[in-house]
């Protein structure tokens, strides 16, 4: 057996700039579930069985191994570790049958984890969401660098996960790095924080 590793969108090393670390996460398998007409309740039950709860509007259910978040009315994104769930879409199709349209999404998104004390500053430079008001598990779709992205506030306070279009992974990474540099080099501040 070959010991193959999944091909990442970029394959870049994690970068720490100032107090922000930007890491490409190629370990997430993704698939979307969209309820077909009149099947919302069936899908809700399926999600409850899978995740323990149905993700509410603008929220994620952070659950192992599968996690999920609300994308839009009757639409959810499911994520799971790539190592064990590379065929996530097939697994979900078996579970939901004709109640939902399931689409493989691993090949559509690049996942970046942004961590560090200046994460909220970086987020505020990049997109139009109230990051400091968001709690763990809050998810918003927004625009970063002209790219439609999901921003997920993870369990730890200084961690966001950004899902962006995989075909524009390089542009999105460039935007994140540029914003991090801008914060690290902002005059009169240390790591983007006002000097007390």
């Amino acid at each position, binding site marked *: 057996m070959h010991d193959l590793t999944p091909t990442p969108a970029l394959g870049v090393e994690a970068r720490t700039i100032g107090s922000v670390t930007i890491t490409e996460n190629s370990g997430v398998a993704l698939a979307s579930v969209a309820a077909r*007409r009149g099947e919302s309740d069936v899908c809700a039950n399926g999600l409850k069985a899978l995740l323990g709860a149905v993700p509410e*509007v*603008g929220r994620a259910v952070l659950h192992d191994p599968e996690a999920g978040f609300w*994308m*839009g009315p009757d639409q959810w994104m499911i994520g799971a570790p790539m190592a064990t769930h590379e065929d996530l879409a097939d697994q979900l199709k078996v579970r939901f049958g004709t109640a939902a349209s399931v689409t493989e999404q691993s090949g559509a998104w690049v996942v970046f984890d942004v961590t560090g004390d200046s994460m909220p500053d970086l987020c505020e430079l990049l997109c*139009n969401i109230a990051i400091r008001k968001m709690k763990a598990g809050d998810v918003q779709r927004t*625009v970063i660098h002209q790219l439609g992205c999901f921003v997920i506030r993870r369990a730890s306070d200084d961690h966001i996960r950004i899902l962006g279009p995989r075909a524009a992974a390089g542009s999105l990474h460039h935007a994140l790095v540029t914003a991090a540099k801008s914060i690290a080099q902002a005059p009169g501040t240390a790591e983007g924080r006002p000097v007390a």
Partner: protein
Amino acid sequence: MIIDHPLLGPRDSSEFTYMGDAALIDRPDPEAEDAAQAFYEYAYLRDNPAGWHRELWFHEAGDRSWLVVTRNTLTHEISNVELARDVARSRGRSA
């Protein structure tokens, strides 16, 4: 301008794209006798009211839902925002 999204709450209008008159929801019956005339009117003729107007907005930089926004074209005041899905279903479409 702020659009009060029925699910997500107040969001900046820059996140949305204007998609035209909400009358577009009422697509004519293609099987009807007068389908050609009805589709001509549906496709080309628009009211251009100075005042209250029901229009479609697409939340492109958000949850991608379509909304029916009732907006005053003179003042930009918005009196009502509904999911276009709910409006269509209330008229027997997409039930």
